[in-house]
């Protein structure tokens, strides 16, 4: 048992950090560190940069473009990216549909889609949630019917993150309404340029536009775009959501935010002294730091345990990562709110290309939107209440 990183792992961290320092433009880095969202072009640029280096889909199996790094190196790599911070990878491609395709897809699908996911030539989005199917995802109603050599899809998806940029969407659709709800669902890949698809923006409480509604009106999709077997889509969806959970702790993001809290608390004041000198405030930071340290080790334990698990079966303990990871992301944004105090007030959603100086301290302008935005993390990817159901059933046997 050894918690210290090996010399090789430390050298690897340095290599990753040096690469990021050399390739990530300073302006982009500063923009993200200040809490601004990356643009579509920022995300594509960074994915292509990584992919040119051979790191675009580091966690994939080597034959599909992966690096062959062990779990610890994967962890170090992701943590360095989050701490930089760099634009996050587009999870819908690299962490969601990519692994589903290389695990369950046909050879033709692998050849056609995987390289374009790695290079982000195809922007993917997720067609899972519906207005009537959130936590009860298997209750979804969007329907795919076989007509001749096509599927015809009708229905509505929602909360489709960054769907406004998407080239493709992976859709869970009902293909058999006569069986148990989990047994009549299929996993289908749909070109967003198909006639009959309409994307409508949803504005969230932070003022941003991340999520969308996607409507399907007699959308024709070639039969060959079915992944795996018909009516087995629920298995693939569970596989996908399990993969999502192991990456969801976002320890690096919370670490980066704690650094920011400390920097800003040295500038902002309480009772005429820097806030960081206030014992109560320092203890609040320490509470979060301790839970985060514990979470980091819990995450490493889950990663280490994965080596011994059956392939494709995520550890139900990864629900701990989702619960604690989201709570800590939220706790760090709450502390940032406390740091800026009254300067949280101005509401000025980002206008691309605007040169107007912000009202109030520059560093304050993204704080409240981020606080409001990050309430999502305990809701998406299986809400924290669903995670507790999973622990109760799959771990505790209740």
């Amino acid at each position: 048992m050894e918690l210290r990183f090996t010399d090789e792992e430390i050298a690897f961290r340095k290599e990753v950090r040096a690469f990021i320092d050399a390739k990530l433009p300073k302006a982009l880095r500063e923009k993200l560190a200040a809490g601004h969202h990356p643009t579509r072009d920022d995300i594509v640029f960074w994915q292509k940069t990584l992919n040119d280096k051979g790191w675009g889909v580091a966690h994939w199996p080597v034959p599909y473009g992966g690096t062959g790094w062990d779990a610890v190196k994967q962890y170090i790599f992701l943590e360095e990216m989050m701490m930089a911070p760099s634009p996050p990878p587009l999870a819908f491609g690299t962490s969601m549909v990519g692994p589903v395709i290389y695990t369950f897809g046909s050879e033709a699908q692998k050849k056609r889609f995987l390289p374009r996911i790695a290079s982000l030539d195809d922007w993917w989005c997720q067609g899972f949630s519906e207005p009537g199917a959130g936590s009860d995802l298997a209750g979804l109603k969007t329907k795919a019917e076989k007509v001749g050599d096509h599927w015809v899809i009708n229905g509505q998806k929602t909360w489709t993150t960054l769907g406004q940029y998407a080239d493709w969407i992976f859709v869970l659709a009902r293909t058999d309404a006569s069986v148990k709800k989990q047994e009549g669902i299929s996993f289908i890949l749909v070109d967003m340029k198909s006639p009959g698809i309409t994307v409508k923006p949803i504005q969230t409480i932070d003022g941003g536009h991340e999520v969308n509604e996607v409507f399907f009106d007699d959308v024709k999709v070639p039969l060959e775009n079915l992944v795996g077997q018909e009516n087995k889509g629920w298995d693939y969806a569970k596989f996908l959501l399990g993969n999502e959970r192991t990456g969801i702790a976002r320890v690096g993001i919370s670490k980066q935010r704690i650094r920011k809290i400390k920097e800003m608390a040295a500038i902002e004041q309480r009772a005429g002294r820097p806030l960081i000198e206030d014992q109560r405030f320092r203890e609040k930071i320490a509470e979060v730091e301790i839970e985060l340290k514990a979470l980091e080790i819990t995450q490493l334990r889950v990663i280490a345990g994965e080596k011994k698990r059956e392939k494709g079966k995520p550890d139900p303990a990864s629900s701990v990562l989702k619960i604690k990871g989201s709570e800590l992301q939220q706790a760090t944004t709450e502390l940032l709110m406390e740091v800026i105090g009254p300067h949280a007030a101005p509401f000025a959603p980002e206008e691309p290309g605007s040169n107007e100086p912000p009202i109030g301290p520059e560093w304050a302008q993204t704080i409240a939107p981020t606080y409001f935005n990050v309430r999502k993390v305990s809701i998406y990817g299986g809400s924290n209440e669903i995670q507790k159901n999973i622990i109760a059933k799959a771990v505790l046997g209740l």
Partner: protein
Amino acid sequence: MDFDLSEEQQLLKDSVEGFLSDTYDFESRKKIAALPGGWSPEVWAKFAELGLLGLPFAEDDGGFGGGAVETMLLAESFGKHLVLEPYLATVILGGGVVKRAGSAAQKAEHIAAIAEGARTFALATTDRHSRYDMFDVTTTAKKDGASYVLDGEKAVVVHGGTADRIIVSARSAGSRRDRGGIGLFIVAADAEGLIRRSSPTQDGTHAAEITLSGVRVDADGILGDPEGGLPVLEAVADEAIAALCAEAVGAMSELTDLTVDYLKQRKQFGVPIGGFQALQHRAAEMFVALEQARSMAMFAAMTASTEDATERRALASAAKVQIGRSAKFIGQQGIQLHGGIGMTMEYKAGHYFKRLTMIDTLFGDADHHLAQVADYGQLVSTA
């Protein structure tokens, strides 16, 4: 980075777990708790035979060269079975001071005796008003030729009533809260001027209030620099914190299992209460708290030998905070989910809760250590 146990470590874990499973069930523990002094010399002899009492000492000193991970494995088993024997007091605390500060002669005199099970120790560091500050020492040590004369009172000395030797911290120079000027002295149980009043504690162990009136300690009882004892005490405390964290994890893990089993068996409204979502979620939260605590107990073990003392102490503090928080939650919820039966002395759950509650008060509670982490200010660094 590696969370696997070595073959030897796995063997150690299995042998301790095997012995305690066979001999230390809850009914046996009740009988042991009722013995004078509150622990069993027979079990102690068996610990010696299994090599547990010499575990964390260097082979050159008569030990088996075990490290913090070995201690963690032992302590976790002790926590599961609510072991009452004075392992912490004798091996980790008493032995911990001797192995760090003792001369070659002192080590030869005491460590083999500890390893054989022939001698028990206690460590007296708490004064009436010192709370968790080990540098806040009012007990005095006055130099008299080559000897020192100790006067003062020490509170809640764990296993102080039965210990053959008590290591006492006393002020040889400076004023009440100075970090320097603290000495460590070995006092024999039958020393003239030593009065011990022992009682059971909330968790079934025993602790003593110790009065020292002109107790003379000769050169062979002075451990290291008589004005430089604090760094030794702090290193010993950090090792003890790591052991207590692991013990608490053992107790939390058993209490969580016990509670989940109860939820499956107990029927109300015609169904097992474990089917109710309000209770399922509480149990899931206990599991989350347990996993976080388990991670920090491992962290404490694996960082206990950090070279820089300031960093080492902050890391131990971080672990103790997490353990304190998790233990309070799991302890309280473990009782709540059991309902009335959890309140009874005859049932096991309450005893885990009581031990966990006492562990929080040993070597600093969660709030004490939170302040230490806050002052350190860099637990979350860049790597």
